[in-house]
């Protein structure tokens, strides 16, 4: 036996065990971080054909989300406005600005601006905007503080966990219907008071509006 295995090999099993433990933990930790939507999606910020700023329009000018995304309350799909909507103002404002050339061209020709889609659920998931907006779930819950973004980025992970967190505890997110598009609205500026009021009103709204927040598989995977 001793002629085959030198003495130092006695330590080998322990070293291999420790090494395998470390590598295993690293693989788990790496997969946990890099392969989940927290990493893979959040922060996605593609370059758009027109440098449209939500911060200027929604925050500084105080436009309502529904001025442009006007079908969001009626449709499963929150529409991207046609260039004609832009031209309502921009035929007066910045009407010769070269940054808006593509918008004017699109409005004239009817050929849509090739916006790059950022928020996208997989094909096997059914998501309905109108039912969420119509039951007091604000845009900000899924899209993050869009009104502060010059260029839109993917702010929330939109994983299944993300959906289920809210579907399991809707009272923590629900808000009055007229505040749905006021992205930085709060019950109170005091965080503790805000939490108390959210809990108080949230549960009542969930009950009054008969919010189902379905958890069955076929609610989303139809």
């Amino acid at each position, binding site marked *: *036996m001793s002629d*085959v295995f030198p003495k130092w090999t006695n330590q080998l099993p322990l070293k291999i065990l420790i090494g395998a433990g470390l590598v295993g933990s690293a693989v788990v930790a790496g997969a946990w971080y890099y392969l*989940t*939507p927290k990493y893979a999606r959040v922060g996605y910020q593609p370059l758009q054909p027109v440098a449209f700023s939500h911060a200027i329009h929604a925050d500084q000018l105080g436009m309502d989300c529904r001025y442009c995304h006007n079908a969001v309350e009626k449709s499963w799909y929150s529409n991207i406005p046609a260039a004609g909507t832009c031209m309502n103002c921009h035929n007066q404002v910045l009407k010769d600005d070269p940054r808006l050339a593509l918008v004017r061209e699109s409005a004239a020709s009817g050929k849509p601006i090739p916006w790059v889609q950022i928020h996208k659920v997989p094909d096997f998931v059914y998501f309905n905007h109108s039912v969420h907006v119509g039951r007091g779930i604000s845009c900000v819950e899924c899209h993050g503080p869009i009104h502060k973004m010059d260029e839109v980025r993917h702010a929330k*992970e939109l994983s*299944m*966990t993300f959906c289920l967190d809210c579907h399991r505890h809707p009272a923590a997110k629900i808000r009055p219907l007229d505040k749905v598009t006021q992205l930085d609205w709060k019950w109170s500026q005091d965080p503790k008071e805000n939490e108390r009021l959210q809990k108080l009103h949230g549960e009542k709204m969930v009950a009054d509006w008969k919010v189902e927040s379905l958890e069955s598989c076929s609610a989303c995977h139809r």
Partner: protein
Amino acid sequence: MSAVISANSIPLPDPPAELVRQPLVLNQRPLGWISDRVAAVTEGPAPLWWKVSFGISFLVMLMCFSMIGYLISTGVGVWGNRHPVMWAWDIVNFVWWIGIGHAGTLISAILFLLRQRWRTSINRAAEAMTIFAVMCAMIFPLIHVGRVWFAWWLFPIPNANSVWPQFRSPLMWDVFAVSTYFTVSTLFWYVGLLPDLATMRDRAKTKLRKILYGLFALGWTGSNRHWNNYEKAYLILAGLSTPLVLSVHSIVSLDFSVSQLPGWHTTIFPPYFVAGAIFSGFGMVLTLLIPLRAVCKLEEVITMRHIDLMCKVTLATGSIVGYAYGMEFFIAWYSGNPYERFCFVNRAFGPYWWAYWAMISCNVLVPQLFWFKKIKRNLVIVFIISILVNIGMWFERFVIIATSLHRDFMPSNWGYYKPTFVDVCTYMGTFGLFFTCFLLFLRFVPMIAMSEVKGITPQADPHHPLGGAKGGPR
């Protein structure tokens, strides 16, 4: 032949012939002979029979893998599973292979705890059979899920979907039962192998063999402390494996009995499945060991007494299975449930009548021949019966699964299942996998637990006239 040799110094009369224990190693073979004879199977150039059977098994295994590749790349539609028979050969084969595995654990664990000394000649090969059978079994649930790349969802792993497997489903319990069974069986087998691997290491002529056997022997020296720890570990693992013999197939049976389908929804299933599993397992052990003891020249270690005892277990479990079949019919009538009644009449006289009667003849009628000593001593007949037992047990699972599913409550929902060539070739292919593994086992690991067999010889007993340092043939 008389086994008792009175020591010359002790004037005791010979006990009457009927009280003499049949020896478990014939011809008072010395300990060295046991090592030489068992290790000889793994040493020297591979014999022709091994090469031929390995070549065939390997090709058949490749066929299995290509069928699985075809299935995965194309989809489960390549199988014959169609509404209403959505579980078919895949689950039949799974249950069949898992059942075969049970003999190994029964022999190694339960017979160990019951101090059945005859287990030592057959436990190693039976445990290897268990492990390879469970491997073949695990393939089927894995590939029948369709999208195999999601098979890891079977395990409760935290994920970004915030959902867990359905813990209330017996299919989930199955995952735990089978994977625990595989792990414990492998550990038990390996722990039992340690002293023999050290023997192999010490016998090794080439450096490579020394290194490999040395690695797997984990530095076994045969010291008192090693033996002490080893015996404890072996006993603990035997204790852990014993409930598994009963639990695994009970849980497999719950896959069916927890559902509400007539023909599946019965409380008799767990014990009935366990008995059937042990029955088929012993059938397979006989199928393997009868030719092996001849080609490996091990007739003196795996004796006719071993064959006889295995035949008795087969007879006992086969009779339990026969009783269960009868009881199913009785309850179908006694329950007064028309669906239950229809299901069983349909089993015996419906479109699958041939499967039912194949099952009855192979599982209930044929093993009854083991009541006769003459038959148990005729190895050709025992071998044929052991194969019939396995055919019968395959049909049992087919009958339970396919005939219960194909005609349920609504006649508009009825159908008839036919396998495709992919079904057949995948099933046949698993034999290739099984025998490839088993033949490799024969060539690289002592197929009989040498150290344990030595432990039950008279020479190992210090109180025996031949034992200890008192001399006797060496």
